[in-house]
């Protein structure tokens, strides 16, 4: 058996004793190997900011129940008689490429071709407690060891079964691409071994993992395993599911944020409209169920509803900003040499929408004693528990299927579309396929909260003595907790909002922000206003750092100018981390930092470190009048980022091609957040209602020249990728804009103040679909 207890190490031979990992062989008809998720404290702690002590929020009995189930936290890799392997991943795939990463890890340790590995998304598994939350760019960090351990144990079992079958010793056998080979050339396929290798009873086993030097899959660029489905239209999202009788359902929503339903004045009439089966008032509006979504839109437009007030009626951007300013914590007067100079700045960041392209969708089937839902969810355990509470059912009577998401960006932490679908299904007694209209997403969806960030730095000669940052924000709803209803409850401890701020907001702020420069005394503080649910808020592809770091980097450029130094050379001198220095140098070199630039154009260069990684971004921006003023129908043009060079060090890139994709996407978000994407609050409603007024980066805004340099491995352990690219991209665009125009921007996005569109009406809440589509055929 391939099971050496203490590998013999020759002194001076250079051999290092390999780490051994514990896993499980599970009893079953076919081979299933497993490993525990979230048991390595160093990984869990770094990836997820500290959660409240379980004892504070958890009933002792719950803990005992969990403790009695030693295998409850397992993730499992199965090998089937057809020679394939499968893994039901307790995470949400929404474009980050984590199913591909998981398949690569299995392929490596199991020595099986990628195309024989099926990775699916697991239903809600409440026993995982907070280990089924997809966020914080944490999936690869958390899954890297457990998936490999499970796959390695499976390989060990296959070899053992092959040894029996071939009458050989394990050490003479070689597994390769799904086949075990004996020295004499005889082979046996994994599929033929799957049943023989199965566990008769569940047992704990030890295994080693492949050393990096033997990697053939991990660390190599691979295409996504779900790409064929995506390009053929076969990839299914919740909205594409064929659940019998789950008819299209939409909600007529109030004209102000979180408005309430007073009375529905023509429900009977609307119910008789073509295709419509049901009209029913729910907590958030009036639901309409019908044969097609198009008929639902028409019916919603015909509804006559008297609406009650919302949570922010009458309020506009300037009112929120005034409230933020009142709550700002004063900047200290630095106690430094009176000859020190001060550099200050105050920056405003407006509301932004998560704006995943696939709108919120949920399929629900509520029965008297059970419920089943299908939805893209970053936090499915919490969803399951909320639905159980909503229906008064035990948690195990609720099945929550996690569907692939058409983007998430933080929005799908929140289960509100599922709660709505469940309410409609319960009230109508029918299955529903509920979808939000795009307008609903903009106007009643989650927003990244408006905030200000103020900075005061003092410098003397070549030294930065102090660097203070005060961040003040509309409360961010963190009550999705870490995916589990009990931790989520800590966010709702009365008085409302305080629990959220103390438990989550402050923790997240303090564990994610930093100033990556050697700047003497550094302080960073957060203050929040309003209750956690005054606005429907949430984090939006990266938590606070796009704003926090953009403010910092603009001030760093000012400090550099004061000291007479070039932005790159200044940063070179002050960055506090070797990995950051390396990526900074790389973008300066590849991006030809300091090259002669025409008038109204400029370069910007910034760095960032988070998620165990380091990144630098160099951009070039064109702010010339002919570019800024170019006209495109129903579109925002403005300054154009013409080039971007990104160097990224995640410690170790499991899939460099996927990492490059995440950096490209992060760049587009950074461009949008710096230049074009925001929501305008006016009289209690956001004015934006679709993609023709919520201006996410489009082809005509995207740089033509984008280069991503994936640095060679440094730490040997993978870091996060999904959100890492955004802060530095946004900051570099802002810095480049300041240099190109000679004016430091202080309000983001830079086009926010000029409203570039005519707002859509709020009553009826949805626009009619046009009928002139053929006119634009090309």
């Amino acid at each position: 058996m391939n099971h050496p207890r203490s590998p013999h190490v020759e002194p001076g031979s250079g051999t290092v004793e390999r780490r051994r990992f514990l896993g499980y062989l599970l009893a079953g008809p076919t081979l299933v190997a497993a490993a525990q998720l979230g048991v390595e404290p160093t990984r869990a702690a770094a990836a997820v900011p500290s959660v409240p002590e379980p004892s504070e929020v958890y009933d002792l009995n719950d803990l005992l129940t969990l403790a009695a189930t030693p295998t409850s936290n397992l993730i499992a890799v199965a090998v089937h008689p057809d020679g394939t392997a499968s893994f039901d991943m307790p995470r949400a795939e929404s474009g980050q490429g984590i199913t591909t990463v998981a398949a690569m890890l299995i392929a490596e340790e199991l020595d099986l071709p990628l195309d024989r590995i099926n990775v699916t998304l697991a239903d809600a598994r409440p026993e995982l407690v907070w280990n089924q939350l997809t966020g914080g760019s944490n999936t690869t960090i958390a899954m890297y060891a457990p998936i490999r351990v499970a796959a390695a144990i499976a390989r060990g079992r296959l070899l053992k079964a092959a040894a029996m079958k071939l009458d050989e010793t394990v050490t003479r056998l070689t597994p390769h691409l799904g086949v075990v080979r004996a020295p004499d050339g005889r082979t046996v396929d994994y599929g033929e071994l799957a049943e023989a290798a199965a566990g008769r009873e569940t047992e704990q086993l030890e295994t080693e993992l492949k050393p990096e030097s033997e990697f053939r899959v991990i660390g190599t660029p691979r295409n996504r395993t779900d790409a064929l489905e995506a390009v053929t239209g076969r990839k299914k999202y919740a909205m594409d599911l064929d659940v019998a009788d789950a008819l299209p359902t939409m909600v007529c929503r109030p004209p102000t944020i979180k408005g309430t339903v007073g009375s529905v004045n023509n429900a009977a009439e609307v119910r008789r409209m073509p295709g419509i089966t049901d009209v029913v008032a729910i907590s958030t509006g009036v639901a309409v169920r019908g044969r097609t979504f198009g008929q639902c839109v028409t019916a919603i437009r015909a509804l006559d509803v008297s609406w009650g007030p919302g949570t922010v009626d009458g309020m506009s951007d300037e009112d929120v900003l005034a409230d933020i300013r009142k709550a700002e914590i004063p900047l200290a007067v630095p106690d430094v040499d009176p000859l020190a100079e001060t550099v200050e700045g105050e920056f405003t960041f407006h509301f932004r929408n998560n704006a995943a392209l696939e709108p919120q969708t949920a399929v629900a089937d509520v029965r008297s004693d059970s419920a089943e839902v299908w939805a893209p969810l970053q936090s499915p355990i919490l969803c399951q528990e909320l639905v159980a509470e909503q229906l008064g059912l035990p948690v195990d009577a609720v099945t929550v299927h996690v569907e692939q998401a058409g983007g998430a960006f933080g929005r799908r932490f929140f289960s509100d579309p599922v709660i709505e679908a469940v309410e409609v299904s319960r009230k109508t007694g029918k299955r529903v396929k509920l979808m939000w209209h795009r307008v609903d997403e903009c106007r009643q969806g989650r927003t990244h909260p408006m905030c200000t960030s103020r900075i005061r730095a003092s410098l003397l000669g070549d030294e930065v003595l102090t660097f203070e940052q005060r961040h003040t924000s509309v409360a961010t709803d963190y009550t999705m907790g870490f995916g589990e209803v009990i931790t989520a409850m800590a966010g709702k401890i009365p008085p409302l909002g305080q629990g959220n701020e103390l438990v989550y907001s402050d923790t997240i702020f303090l564990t994610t922000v930093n100033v990556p420069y050697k700047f003497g005394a550094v302080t960073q503080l957060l203050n929040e206003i309003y209750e956690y649910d005054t606005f429907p808020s949430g984090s939006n592809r990266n938590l606070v750092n796009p704003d926090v770091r953009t403010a910092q980097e603009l001030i760093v450029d000012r400090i550099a100018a004061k000291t007479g130094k070039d932005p790159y050379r200044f940063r070179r001198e002050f960055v506090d981390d070797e990995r950051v220095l390396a990526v900074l140098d790389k973008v300066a070199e590849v991006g030809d930092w300091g090259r002669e630039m025409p008038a109204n154009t400029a370069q910007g260069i910034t760095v960032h470190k988070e998620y165990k990684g380091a990144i630098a971004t160099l951009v070039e921006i064109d702010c010339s009048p002919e570019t800024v003023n170019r006209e495109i129908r129903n579109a925002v043009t403005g300054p154009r980022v013409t080039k971007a060079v990104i160097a990224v060090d995640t410690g170790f890139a499991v899939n460099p091609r996927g990492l490059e994709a995440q950096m490209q996407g992060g760049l587009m978000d950074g461009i949008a957040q710096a230049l074009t994407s925001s929501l305008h609050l006016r009289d209690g409603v956001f004015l934006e209602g679709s993609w023709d007024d919520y201006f996410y980066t489009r082809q005509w805004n995207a740089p033509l020249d984008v280069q991503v340099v994936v640095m060679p491995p440094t730490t040997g352990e993978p870091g996060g990728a999904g959100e890492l690219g955004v802060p530095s991209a946004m900051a570099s665009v802002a810095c480049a804009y300041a240099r190109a125009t000679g004016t430091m921007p202080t309000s983001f996005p830079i086009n926010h103040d000029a409203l570039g569109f005519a707002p859509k009406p709020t009553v009826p809440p949805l626009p009619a679909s046009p009928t002139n589509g053929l006119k634009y055929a090309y």
Partner: protein
Amino acid sequence: MPEHTFTLNGEQVTVDVDGDVRLLWAIRDLLGVTGPKYGCGINVCKACTCHINGKAFNPCSVRVADVGPDDEITTIEGLPTTVGEDLHPMQQAWLDHDVAQCGYCQPGQIMAAVAKVRQARAEGHEVRDEDLDEIRNICRCGTYNRIRDAIRSGAEHM
């Protein structure tokens, strides 16, 4: 209820629905062809891009009453058969360049790309940067650069 007949991916289909219903919902909700995606319903996100008689258009903004038996509608599902292959060259280019992230916009992007290449050629040139700048399809994951690279590769085999 009125019946509406058109050709969808090479097959004649008939839907029995009010003529004001937009074609997208006839295709998705009544015929169960789900490649074209909903992203806005007002012809701005372009996620539902399909072809009508070989030209790109958005069925969210065309009434089912406004297409007839002679109109050939092609969705992403029907694109490969227009070239008699398992995959259209543009789909293959999408795979080669590993374009898709969440994938939601990609059927529409590919349909737009094929039409854009044809449009450029009808104007007597290959796709240029300024043509690609005109593509209105939103990719919220930000795959724009790989889309551009893939369109150029796909065009070489079209």
